[in-house]
Every structure is written in structure tokens, then in C-alpha cells.
């Protein structure tokens, strides 16, 4: 009897060890994919749903052909919000005005393209960020409401593909383009919409500290309306806000600013800012040949420069999930 029990225990331990090995193999496989590869984001200057479908399809095909489950994010920049002559809200697409309904259709075609492009891969997922900016004249609470509703319409249009895409809002909020007060009005309008999605701030923190000490009232640019607290708010402090900031500068200044904004969250708010990833503009610079060498970080340089700073401090240490690089579309 004793021999039998010992033998059973041996067998049991072998089986348990085998099961543990299988479980750990699964876990390591599921967690392997990190942003070793960036996506391409786009300044959308086309009103063609066919173009957007193709862009989504191409990303889907890329993910399908890569080994392992892919998770990534793409920003579709649609320009500043505007109203047409009939008072219908939309965005400029830099000269080719589209109503919110048309933008929602463009976005859902991108989602459909991705869904179809991934073919038999039903596990890879992309986050589609529908981004306006704060450079126009309509930076108001109503504009925020309009954008939040447009994002919900896009979600509704794309619900049949939503097992592989997450459609959210976005705003390239830049310090030089609008005051903090106006931008906060926009955020308030966006946040107030029932059932609204989260948004990613795809903007900058121009003039915010890159070193030294700071307080809640530290101004980012002398005489400017933005304090570091305002920048924290637009990117993370506001309920729907998450940062996916521009890390263009090759001297590391923008990475240093966003590291300090994350640390500001730890020092003065409810915790370090969790950054969603980095945005670079290397491909756009190649297209326009107008950036010089000071703002043309590659996607890897942008990601690594911010990641290194964040992970050099235990208070801000984190793994950002996304890396993306923007270009103009249609391209030339």
C-alpha cells in the first residue's frame, strides 16, 4: 500500500509538472507580442471609403502574416473640426470637408478592411484613434460633444467588426494652437456625452519642463496659458484622456517633457501617468523633406527615448503598448 501511494504521488507530480509547463507555455505565448513593430498612422486627405478600406486591409494583412497575436494602434488624423455652409459639423481633411457622418463611414471602412485583412487570424486587434486637433476656430464644448458622438457613430457602423478593432476618439492638442481654457471646454463637451469612448491626446507638451523642479502652477511657456497641470489634465487627468504623445525631437526634449508629466502624476496626482505609446513623424518628414534633422525621430527612437526615461525611475516604470509613425495619405 505504501509503495502504491509513493508511486501514485510520483505520477501525480509528473502530471502536475507537465500541466504547469503547458500553462506557462501558453502564458508566455500570449504575452510575447510587444511593440517591436510600429504601425503607420495617417494624415487623412482623402474622402474615399475605398482608400480607407485598403489602408485597414493592408494593416490586417500585415498582422495576419506576422507570427503571434498582434495588438497595435493607428491614428487617423482628420484635421480641424468645421461646420459647412448648412451648419453641419465635420472636419476639414485639409481642404476636402467631410461631415461627421462621412468621417464615421471612413473610419468604419478602415475597421472593416482590417477585419477582413486579418483573414483566419481572429485574435489580432487594432485600436483605431479618430483624431481631430485644437488648431481651428471651433474649440468649444459643443465641438467636443460633436466629436464624441461622431466616434460613437463610427463604433456603431463598425460593430460587426468590433471583435478585432477598438474605435476611440483622439485630439492632437497642442500648446501653441489654443488656450488651455478652450481646450478644457472641448474636453468637457466630449466627456459629457453619454456612453462616450475614451480619447487619446496625440499632442505635445511644448515648453513644459525637461528638468529641474516644478509645481502645480509651473507654466509650460512663459506668458502662455498652459501650466503643467493643464497638460496633465488634457492627457490623463480628464476622465476619458490617455496620452499617446508626439516624440519627434531627436535631442530627447519631448521624451523628457512627457517623462516629467508622468512623474508629475506620481508627485501631485493619483499616480504616474500611464502612457499609451509614442507618435513619431519620420515617414511624413521623408515625404515632405521639411523637418530637418531635429524632429525626425524614427518610431524606434521615439519609443526607446521615452521608455528609457520612464523605466529609469521606479515611480514611472511601465511598458507602453503602442508605437506609431505618421505619414500623409494619399502619398506621393
Amino acid at each position, binding site marked *: 500500500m505504501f509503495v502504491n501511494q509513493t508511486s501514485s504521488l510520483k505520477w501525480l507530480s509528473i502530471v502536475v509538472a507537465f500541466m504547469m509547463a503547458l500553462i506557462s507555455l501558453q502564458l508566455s505565448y500570449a504575452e510575447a507580442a510587444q511593440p517591436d513593430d510600429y504601425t503607420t498612422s495617417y494624415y487623412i486627405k482623402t474622402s474615399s471609403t475605398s482608400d480607407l478600406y485598403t489602408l485597414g486591409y493592408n494593416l490586417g494583412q500585415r498582422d495576419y502574416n506576422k507570427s503571434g497575436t498582434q495588438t497595435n494602434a493607428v491614428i487617423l488624423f482628420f484635421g480641424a473640426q468645421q461646420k459647412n455652409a448648412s451648419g453641419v459639423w465635420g472636419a476639414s481633411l485639409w*481642404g476636402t470637408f467631410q461631415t461627421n457622418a462621412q468621417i464615421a463611414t471612413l473610419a468604419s471602412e478602415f475597421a472593416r478592411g482590417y477585419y477582413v485583412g486579418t483573414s483566419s487570424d481572429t485574435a489580432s486587434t487594432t485600436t483605431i484613434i479618430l483624431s481631430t486637433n485644437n488648431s481651428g476656430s471651433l474649440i468649444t464644448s459643443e465641438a467636443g460633444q460633436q466629436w464624441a458622438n461622431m466616434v460613437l457613430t463610427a463604433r456603431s457602423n463598425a460593430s460587426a467588426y468590433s471583435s478585432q478593432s477598438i474605435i476611440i476618439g483622439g485630439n492632437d492638442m497642442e500648446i501653441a494652437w489654443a488656450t488651455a481654457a478652450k481646450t478644457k471646454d472641448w474636453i468637457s463637451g466630449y466627456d459629457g456625452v453619454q456612453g462616450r469612448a475614451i480619447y487619446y491626446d496625440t499632442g505635445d507638451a*511644448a515648453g513644459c519642463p525637461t528638468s529641474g523642479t516644478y509645481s502645480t502652477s509651473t507654466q509650460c511657456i512663459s506668458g502662455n496659458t498652459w501650466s503643467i497641470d493643464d497638460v496633465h489634465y488634457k492627457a490623463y487627468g480628464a476622465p476619458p484622456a490617455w496620452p499617446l504623445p508626439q516624440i519627434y525631437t531627436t535631442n530627447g526634449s519631448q521624451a523628457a517633457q512627457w517623462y516629467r508629466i508622468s512623474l508629475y502624476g506620481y508627485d501631485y496626482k493619483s499616480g504616474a501617468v500611464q502612457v499609451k505609446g509614442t507618435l513619431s513623424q519620420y515617414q511624413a518628414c521623408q515625404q*515632405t523633406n521639411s523637418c530637418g534633422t531635429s524632429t525626425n525621430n524614427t518610431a524606434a527612437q521615439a519609443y526607446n527615448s521615452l521608455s528609457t526615461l520612464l523605466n529609469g525611475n521606479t515611480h514611472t516604470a511601465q*511598458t507602453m*503598448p503602442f508605437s506609431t509613425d505618421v505619414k500623409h495619405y494619399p502619398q506621393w
Partner: protein
Amino acid sequence: MKIRKKVLMAGIVGTLLIVSIPIASYASTGNKLFKNPIDILMGSKDAYDKLPKEKKDEIDKEAKHLEQARAGIIKQAPKNDVRPQKEKQAPFDSGIMDKEAPPGVNDIMVSNIWRGTLGNQKISLYAGVKVDDAEQGAVVLDIMDENNKTIVFKELNTPDKAGAVKVVKESGGVITLESDNGVTFTFNVNNQDFQK
């Protein structure tokens, strides 16, 4: 002997279960494994755990959408590659327009824009001032073809420092700009430069 058999059976059944679930999932996802929605949204569970409650709630709401779609609560479409018909581009704006930043340009504060079509080219001239020098006027010229492909994209400073400029008039591709300090400049789209 009976105990050993029972243990063995339990082990075999457990192993089969552990193996079969991921294999079935793996096969149904094109040989890829589903990631947890929280991991997709946050990168890792660890990052999620560091969030304050109100931020966790935001992520939970987004994760729920994905879970519902995966579970079929939100019906998913078949993967048919039905492409939309290639449409013509929507009409291009024309006239003097409200301010807006050109795509990818953040070193100029734009005052206003002239947009119009010359031949089959769609032109935007953004007028304003350098962000880091309030005396240096500047423009961005963006020319697209009929399919909206950009063929020219260039940034130029005004020949003299006279403050921010704005578009006041256009005729046949010749654009008149006025500065804050009352200086008039002329920009010729055909030459893609300021007229001396």
C-alpha cells in the same frame, strides 16, 4: 492500485482539458491566441493594476465592448473581401478660410488659409507666423493633384520680418498677404515663392 489508477485518470483528463482548450482556440483564431482585453488596452495587467479606480473603470468599459464582440453578443460579420467602389474625391474648398494647422507642421501659428483649384491642382496656402519668432511671418504651400496626392509641400518665411501675415486677396494664383505691421507681401503660387 485503485488510487494510482484514479490519479492517473484525473491527470490524463486534466491534461487533455488543458491541451484541448487552447488547441481549439488556437485553431479557431488562425493559429493565434486571444489576448485579454485588459492587456490589449493597457499592455499588461501590471499597468492596469497601477491605475486609480476611475481610470480602471474607463478601461473596464472599453474591455467590455471587446468581450461582448468576441462572445458573439455583438454579432460579427463574415470576412468577405467586398471592396467599396473607388469614388471621386469630394469637392475641394475654395476661398479664404478659417485658421487651421497644416498637417504635420507645428512651428507656425496659422492666421488663415487660401484654398482653391488652379488647372487640376488643389492648392492650400496657410499664412501665419513662426511660433518661436513673433516677427517672422511664414506660409506653408500644399499642392495636391486631382486625386489628392500631395505634389508640393513647402514652408517659406516672408522676405522681411513684419509680424504674422494673413491672406486678404487672391487672383489667378497670385495671393496678397498683409502683416500685423501693415506690410503687404505677394505670393505667386505658380512660382511657389514670394514675388520680389
